[in-house]
């Protein structure tokens, strides 16, 4: 065997022998996958007996629960992050396809690529297809993330979940907790680059999907912000698409739980716009309540306004 042949054979052997999943780039891709724990709203838990809880504190807790529930689908993303990519493509990684155990006959994949233009930007999509569906994939979720550094998954991201195309193809979505609604779309824009972190959500539901009504919709817009200390704020707007009536709530709280909320009710049919202010203590008991549309004999105003915490907007 000549020397050159020995060298080439050795290199070939070394190449074959070199194997594994040891990759910094894989980590960068996995770092760009949104994590539910980074985006969920955090507020001190309410009292076990909610009868005495401040009304707007209770609403805030309920909306936080709904906000976080809407992010439950990100558990799939959390699952993806625990596995190495299935395949590596130039400037990209693919997880899957894997059978969708919750939807027999369907399979999913997660594709992430580096953006060709913007440095440190990753684009991704979560797709479903019927097994044997060839090249036809239905994109349920697509988004992007720009890593800014400074910590794990620090950066800015944006993703949209769209259900209509997959639903039309026969993909079955689960009903919401109310047993009637189904998700139409969810758009999340978030920034975890620095504090305060912010998550802006637009949630659109089919409220009567259980009856097969996929025309009427209801939407919820929420903006959540939080400091590392636990101080946070939630702004949400709820609108009834049929009547046009809306409620806009701006709720803020301290790490201890003490907080306040200002709710504005608007009825476009008669031009009425009223603002309700309520403050609560560390136990979420109301310390000041000014509700203009209180029904007598309940007083419009109770408590002491000076007990309201001064919580600057974030």
């Amino acid at each position: 065997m000549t020397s050159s042949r020995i060298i080439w054979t050795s290199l070939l052997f070394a190449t074959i022998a070199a194997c594994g999943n040891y990759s910094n780039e894989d980590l960068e891709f996995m770092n760009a996958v949104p994590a539910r724990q980074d985006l969920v709203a955090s507020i001190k838990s309410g009292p076990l007996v909610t009868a005495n809880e401040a009304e707007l504190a209770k609403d805030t807790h309920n909306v936080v629960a709904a906000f976080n529930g809407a992010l439950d689908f990100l558990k799939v993303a959390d699952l993806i992050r625990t596995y190495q990519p299935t395949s590596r493509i130039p400037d990209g990684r693919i997880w899957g396809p894997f059978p969708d155990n919750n939807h027999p006959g369907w399979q999913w994949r997660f594709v992430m690529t580096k953006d060709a233009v913007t440095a440190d930007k990753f684009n991704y999509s979560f797709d479903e297809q019927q097994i044997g569906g060839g090249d036809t994939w239905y994109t349920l979720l697509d988004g992007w993330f720009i890593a800014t550094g400074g910590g794990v998954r620090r950066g800015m991201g944006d993703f949209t979940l769209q259900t209509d195309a997959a639903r039309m193809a026969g993909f079955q979505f689960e009903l919401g907790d109310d047993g009637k609604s189904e998700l139409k779309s969810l758009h999340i824009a978030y920034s975890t680059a620095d504090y305060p972190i912010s998550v802006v959500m637009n949630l659109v539901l089919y409220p009567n999907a259980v009856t097969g009504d996929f025309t009427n919709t209801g939407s919820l817009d929420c903006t959540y912000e939080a400091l590392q200390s636990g101080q946070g704020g939630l702004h949400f707007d709820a609108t009834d698409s049929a009547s046009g009536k809306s409620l806009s709530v701006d709720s803020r709280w301290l790490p201890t739980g003490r907080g306040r909320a200002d709710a504005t009710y608007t009825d476009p049919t008669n031009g009425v716009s009223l603002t309700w202010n309520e403050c609560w203590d560390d136990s979420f008991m109301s310390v000041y309540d000014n509700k203009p549309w209180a029904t007598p004999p309940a007083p419009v105003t109770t408590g002491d306004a000076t007990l309201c915490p001064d919580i600057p907007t974030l």
Partner: protein
Amino acid sequence: MRIGLKLASVALLAVTAAAPAARAQGLRRFAIVAGNDSGGGETRPLLYASADARKVYDILTRLGGVRTEDATLLIGASASQLLSAVVAVEMQAAEAKRHGEQTALFFYYSGHAKDGSLRLGETRIPVEGLKARIASSPVDVRIAILDSCKSGAMTRTKGARRAPAFEIQADSPRDAKGMVILTSSTSDEDSQESDTIGGSYFSHHLASGLLGGADKSGDGRVTLFEAYAYAYDRTVADTAESAAGAQHPTFSYDLAGNGDLVLTDVAVRHEGVYLPREAPSGVYFLVDGKGFVAAEINKADGVDRRVALAPGHYRVKRRLPDRLRVGDVDVPRGQMVALAEGRLRDAPFSDDPVKGAGRVDLTSRWSLGAGATYQSVFAAPSGASLFPPTGMLAVDLSLRNFLRRDWVWSLDLAAGSTNGVVASVDAPFRFSEVSLASSLTVEWPHRYVTPYVGGRLAMLIMGRRFDNDLYPAQFFSTLSPGLVGGAAFRIMQNTSLIARGRLHYLLYNIDENRSLGYWELAAMVSYDL
């Protein structure tokens, strides 16, 4: 016996003087030189058969007019490999003859022989078959030298007497014309090795003769007869008092029409040590830098001797009844250095450079080492972000002088771990590595320090776990070739401290193909088992 030998020598010299010595010019010389320390299950391993073969190979290619492309050195070869080499040389020789060249084949074997067969490890070649094969080779002149026990069987069948087996066979049939056989002992004698000279008596003295010690005519050329006569005299003299009894080389000659053959030309290179005419007579030992006797020259009064040693440093010893005369001489490349008596000084027998403590143990032996290493990947920080610098604990097992003299084959195992961070995603991790490697090094043993260099092939298995299982664990394994060098410092009889460095190539091919490298420093303690 001695009287008979002298008479035979005189008769040989007469023949030699009458016949014109063949010259290297016009004679294409081929050589097959084989050495095998192992003779299979029924024999004890020899210590110096391979070393003797190398020595003869070096002399033939350096001084014997054998071109390196026409010389084949076989160490530890099997019977089939030896026969294959014969076939290959025969094809070369046949081609040379077609071009009108006169050809000669020099066959040398050092190793075990028993029950009429050469023992090459677990394989055998019948002596008669080998002899017939060489006799039928398509060359003009065939010279076979066997240094093995009872090797005289090869000449006995030709009719040589037991001893003194110094006899020219003139009654051979015509088809055996052009063949000379030298053996180290008769058909019922053992061929002996010596730790003092680091070789077999016969090959040692044959080599010394070829280097110039046998140039009795003083013409700078050592002929076949001169070499044999010298080897015979010195071998018999050295072994006469040995426990195994005297060993008598044999000689079978049939070169009708060719006369004597010049085996080596010690003048042509003009390189080595020159013993001038006025230098005292006696046996001069020329000891190389490793403590081995490179040549043992028996100088007579009133004659000079050229000893064609390779460039290097040599210690010279001449033994007197009550003391030694020792000295040092450096042989530069292309120069013949005269050794005047004034360069030697008196020394007690305890300072004998041949039998002194500087002698190197040539026996195969194992050693076990343990210590700590520190390893770092080049191309930091990107390389370090992948594979952070790591301290490791290591053990190694080494086998010396098994493959060949001063070669060390080692297996080593090392393991270690450290902390690292993937900066791009701010992910701290725990890095672990295990390496299993084999290395082959060449060492230059001295009394206290033994430097060495060589090559190494390592199997690396590396992995990392991220804090809080933030990401799934990762691993990477690869083969990594590299170079190793260091020095062993002997601190006790069987114990050495070792300082070692390594340079390795590391192919990383997960994200992309990257040629990385790493260096490694180690401090070890090694114990000879």
